[in-house]
């Protein structure tokens, strides 16, 4: 125990003596927490620039455009004289949506013929296109509903009856666990966790490999006396520091960006501890298997770079091809993000995250175990 403690003190001193590492440890998480958070500070896409071409120029076409402009996400910014100019607005990237109302739109509707509003949406950015699609359909539906209500009133329905019967089946949608459908709440926890995993892997990766580069691993082994104390003593300062970093995120950075956090604080701390254990374990395994610091960092980059995409946080693992899934399951972030969402967004208890917790525990134990074997083997 004493040997592990001595190793921990030595590791903490090494860390303090290295300016780049200290900077990375102390400033990077905060910098990334705040900078990446600010990208999504608008939370939802609003004021999406739209260009319109109204060839009908009637009260009804102006009303239709007013409805579209009044939606939360679309802002009519450009008025085109003809369809060609409309196309130019969207091809130049000035407008995300181009709306075209043909001549005869209003007169057709008055004769009971359907009127079509053609909208070209920039589908290259799906996030923007989905929002535009939904807003345009709602606006068109609202205008169509007015005509139906008018017919029902003419044919004898009272005002209330007509309002009920123009669309007898209505949808009440409930956006569970993220009622505003906002992207800040959705994306940021995943992005932050990815950065923190990268740091954990990097520090784990450099802990032994860095000593190999400096030629001091033998000394570290002598201070520790054995591989178990060496691993425990080296991991301890990072584990303690990262528990603090996670606490800063939970207590300061999440509230700063007003990201709601449900669930038990104790459970969240336990989950964070398991993630730290698993990610540090993976880092130490990379470190033990590496000949030098560069090898370790390459390994870290190999796991860390695609981690968010593979984690299933954005694109579900079930939709990935079979040969990608095993890689996804090997990365601690995959299990952590699944459990994090369950605890903090669903507000669920421990029984709901047992599989992920077990996976993190197993990953950490297997990785530290393999690192121990590697260190023991080297001594032999």
């Amino acid at each position, binding site marked *: 125990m004493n040997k592990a403690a001595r190793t921990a003190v030595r590791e903490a001193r090494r860390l303090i003596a290295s300016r780049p590492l200290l900077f*990375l440890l102390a400033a990077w998480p905060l910098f*990334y927490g705040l*900078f*990446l958070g600010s*990208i*999504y500070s*608008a939370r939802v896409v609003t*004021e*999406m620039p739209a260009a319109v071409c109204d060839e009908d120029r009637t009260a009804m076409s102006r009303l239709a455009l007013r409805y579209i402009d009044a939606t939360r996400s679309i802002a009519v910014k450009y008025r085109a004289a003809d369809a060609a100019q409309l196309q130019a607005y969207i*091809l*130049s*990237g000035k407008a995300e949506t181009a709306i075209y109302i043909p001549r005869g739109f209003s007169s057709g*509707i008055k004769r*009971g013929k*359907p009127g079509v*509003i053609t*909208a*070209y*949406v920039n*589908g*290259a*950015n*799906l*996030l923007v296109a989905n929002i535009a699609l939904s807003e*345009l359909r709602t606006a*068109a539906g609202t205008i169509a509903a007015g005509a*139906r209500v008018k*017919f*029902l009133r003419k*044919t004898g329905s009272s005002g209330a009856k007509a*309002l009920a019967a*123009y669309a*007898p089946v*209505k*949808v*009440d*949608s*409930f*956006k*569970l*666990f993220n*009622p505003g459908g906002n992207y800040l709440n959705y994306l940021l926890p995943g992005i932050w966790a990815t950065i923190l995993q990268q740091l954990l892997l990097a520090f784990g990766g*450099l802990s032994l490999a860095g000593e190999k*580069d400096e030629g001091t691993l033998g000394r570290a082994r002598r201070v520790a006396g054995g591989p178990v104390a060496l691993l425990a003593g080296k991991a301890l300062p990072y584990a303690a520091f990262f528990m603090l970093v996670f606490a800063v995120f939970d207590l300061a950075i999440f509230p700063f960006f007003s990201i709601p956090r449900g669930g038990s604080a104790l459970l969240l701390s336990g989950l964070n501890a398991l993630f730290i254990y698993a990610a540090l374990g993976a880092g130490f395994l990379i470190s033990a298997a590496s000949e030098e*610091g*560069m090898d370790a*960092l*390459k390994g870290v980059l190999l796991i860390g*770079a*695609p981690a*968010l995409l593979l984690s299933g946080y*954005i*694109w579900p693992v079930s939709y*990935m*091809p079979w*040969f*990608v899934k095993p*890689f996804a399951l090997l990365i601690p972030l995959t299990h952590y993000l699944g459990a994090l*969402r369950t605890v903090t967004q*669903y507000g669920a208890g421990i029984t709901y995250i047992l599989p992920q917790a077990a996976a993190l525990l197993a990953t950490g134990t297997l990785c530290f175990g393999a690192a121990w074997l590697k260190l023991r083997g080297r001594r032999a």
Partner: protein
Amino acid sequence: MMQAFLAVFRRECLRIVRNRHLRLICLASPFLYGVMLASVYAHKRINAVPVGLVDMDNSALSREAARRVDATENVDILRSYDTPAQAQDAVIRGEVHGFLYVPKDFSRDIKRGGEARLRVAADYANVVVANPVLMAASDAANDLSGELFTGLAARRGLVRRRAEDLTQLVRADVRPIFNPQMNYLDFFVPGLIFAVLQQIIIVGLAFTVTEERQKGRGAELYELSGGRPAALLAAKAAPYLLLNFAFSLFFIYGLLPFFDLRPQAGPAAVLGLTLLFVACTTAFGLVVSSCFRRTTDAFLALMFFSMPAFLVSGFSWPSYAMPWFVRAVALPIPTTHFMAWFRMTLGAPLPPGAQLRPALILAALGAFYAFSAWLILRRLYRRAGLA
């Protein structure tokens, strides 16, 4: 000058082949990441999202509503639950991503000429999965509403055809351009592979430059390049430029067509802009490399570059929804300008002028970075007493 260039160029090519770190960074990782990241999105669209059903009405009409939701390609009703609480629990357990709730008296309300509510709950903790669920419910409800309204109007003496017209009196004919199938592969993959390539160029250059510095080979390189910083920089960068240009062409004409993505611009525009992008990134990499003294420091710092660079580029979250200082950070990064153009050219033929803006920006940035790298190298030589 040419002799000096060739000497350093040959030396750098040999380094890429012989150094195991450079071999992995420059030769293996573009293949590995390019193919793996593209494969993640091979499914292209989120469809058949598993959802639950809570049917408290249990009538022919409620079953019809559920059948219509299930019939959309967006969702699959996986199983039924007795209560909304059970269904929500299934969402939390990850069995389903949302559920449809048909309240009691749904059918009776419609028959009485009243309004019936179909409730849909989707797990918005993941917006990508939740959107198709809401869309499916909304489409099915509109469909059913239209049919019920047509029946009612027909009963009131309106010719059926006119009644059908009335249900669709104003229709939004939404045509997604650039990505007509609205699939995620077309949306993400072109950007991802070039974000990865940018990272590989910068990391590769950072490694080679810092390693030379760390091992004190400045004087050797100075002599080999005949004391010309410009020749040294050009020759050191040229192998990376050529190699990564070749990888870019492999991505554009080999990997992306495999996923049915082909640039609509002519080869001259594609080759020209891609070359400008790779050249600009290479020059950017030279400047970034000069900030580090040790390879490990460079690696440590740069492993945190690619994700923020991708996020601030406006590729996923639009630039106009970002604060001004984030937009400012994105401007000097080459991918910001290249990816926006490249994604559009994959979707539709662009007018001739569309190439001009990104080309000018990339050329200007590239020239600025190359000049900065030259100034830095000249200063380093002076400090070392070589020039």
